[in-house]
């Protein structure tokens, strides 16, 4: 699905070159839920942006659906959810979800049908005619997820989508996201800096560390696919969380 081989990315800044990604190799299979976790500057967002063709690697190989990220972007192979909801304030919630559909040339009837379907998927039915600024932050972020789901992309790239929300809302959205993933069978790449979030959601957790940005550990989660919120108190969960924490600490030792 997504495959990176010895990926390198160096930014040229005024303070000299910054090694954002070094020798990153990873394979994400169809239907997986992969989290990227690490301190800021570890390149997790940069890696995600490389998959989305928003950033261009300076070395190595990356393919998305077997083609280059640019070709994948042009064939609308993925939906991207940003840190902020970024809904356009002059459009209603329904209008925002319709935006990619308009650009991609879906028919009017198809647009309405899809908008209704994804709104139901993120539990926002009935809010189609509201404006984004009339909704809470959590609802806005759900609408932005609906917007990324509206067209038929198999891949969902999520860049700390719940980072700005409080813990209670976040728990609820995590649970919803798992349901949504189960229902839609998408492949999800998810950037976060929360250990519980990463462990709770993922089938595979990628631990990264900074200077230079690199992968220090890849953990295949032993947790079952069905995950109620209280799985977070189980020994298996705590064990995985412990391993992630160890990986993060190891990355920091060579500072």
């Amino acid at each position, binding site marked *: 699905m997504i495959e990176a081989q010895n990926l390198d990315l160096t930014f040229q800044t005024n303070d000299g070159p910054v090694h954002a990604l070094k020798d990153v190799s990873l394979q994400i299979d169809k239907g997986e839920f992969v989290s990227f976790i690490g301190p800021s500057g570890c390149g997790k967002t940069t890696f995600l942006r490389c998959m*989305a*063709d*928003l950033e261009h690697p300076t070395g190595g190989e990356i393919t998305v659906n077997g083609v280059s990220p640019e070709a994948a*972007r*042009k*064939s*609308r192979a*993925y*939906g*991207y959810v*940003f*840190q*902020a909801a*970024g809904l*356009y*304030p*002059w459009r209603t919630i329904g209008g925002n979800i319709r*935006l*990619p559909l*308009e*650009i*991609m040339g879906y028919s009017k009837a198809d647009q309405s049908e899809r908008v209704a379907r994804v709104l139901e998927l993120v539990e926002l039915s009935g809010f189609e005619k509201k*404006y984004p*600024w*009339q909704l809470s932050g959590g609802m806005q972020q759900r609408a932005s997820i609906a917007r990324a789901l509206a067209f038929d992309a198999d891949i969902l790239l999520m860049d700390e989508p719940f980072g700005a929300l409080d813990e209670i809302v976040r728990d609820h959205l995590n649970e919803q996201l798992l349901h949504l993933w189960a229902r839609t069978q998408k492949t999800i790449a998810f950037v976060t800096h929360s250990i519980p979030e990463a462990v709770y959601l993922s089938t595979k957790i990628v631990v990264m560390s900074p200077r230079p940005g690199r992968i220090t550990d890849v953990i295949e989660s032993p947790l079952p696919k069905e995950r109620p919120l209280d799985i977070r108190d189980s020994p298996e969960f705590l064990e995985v969380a412990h391993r992630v924490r160890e990986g993060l600490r190891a990355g920091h030792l060579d500072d």
Partner: protein
Amino acid sequence: MSWLAFAFGAWALGWWLNARLAARPRTQGTRLAVPLIFGITLIAIWEGLVRGLEISPVLLPAPSMIAVRFVASTDILWEDFVQTVIKGALSGYAIGCGSAFLMAILVDRFDFLRRGLLPVGNFVAALPVIGMAPILVMWFGFDWQSKAAVVVVMVFFPMLVNTVQGLADSSAMQRDLMRTYAAGYWATLLKLRLPAAMPFIFNGLKIASTLALIGAIVAEFFGSPIRGMGFRISTSVGQLALDLVWAEIVVAAVAGSAFYGLVALIERAVTFWHPSQRHT
């Protein structure tokens, strides 16, 4: 003496009424009434002082005299209004703002224009462009075309600078989002950057609306056919018919406010989503 007492009485009454109204909680009624009473009081004081102190009508005619003159010369005032506001100011405004808008899209698209034209634009916007009026009258003749040309020159750069700024106002994240949809230049322009630019565009349109009226009136001082508000003002001053000058000023004030108000009203409908316009 009684007129001076009238002026004093009007002042006291107006003050008392407004002080009482302002102390009350704000309602739709008081919001309108307070400035209205304020204005009427000012006019009453003006009337009382001019009559009581026997000020020469050449220096300052009484409001009643201006009103009488206004009613008696509606046909002249209408003719001047059509010549100056409709033909001169409005056509210049439409041409100037329209071409500035199109130019802004080009400037935004081609970087060499941004780097070359925008500094020049800022320089010209700071110039008192009205100084070019005599030249433009020479080029385009005495009739309204030259007035429209002055208005075009006056409104072009403020409108251009505002629109260019507005087109650059979308955030990096919003543009990235359009990129993930593989949206082309036109889709991005129409669905993201133009809507995002609207608050700036209306700011430019409002600034231009006041400039347009000033430009059209003042340009007539440098030559015009025997009609037009600027023409009437300059010749009536020569004939010491100051009441007619004031009547023209009343027309200009009403037309200017109505024009600005109309643009502001459209702005409210178009940019209802902007934090400065939201009331919910």
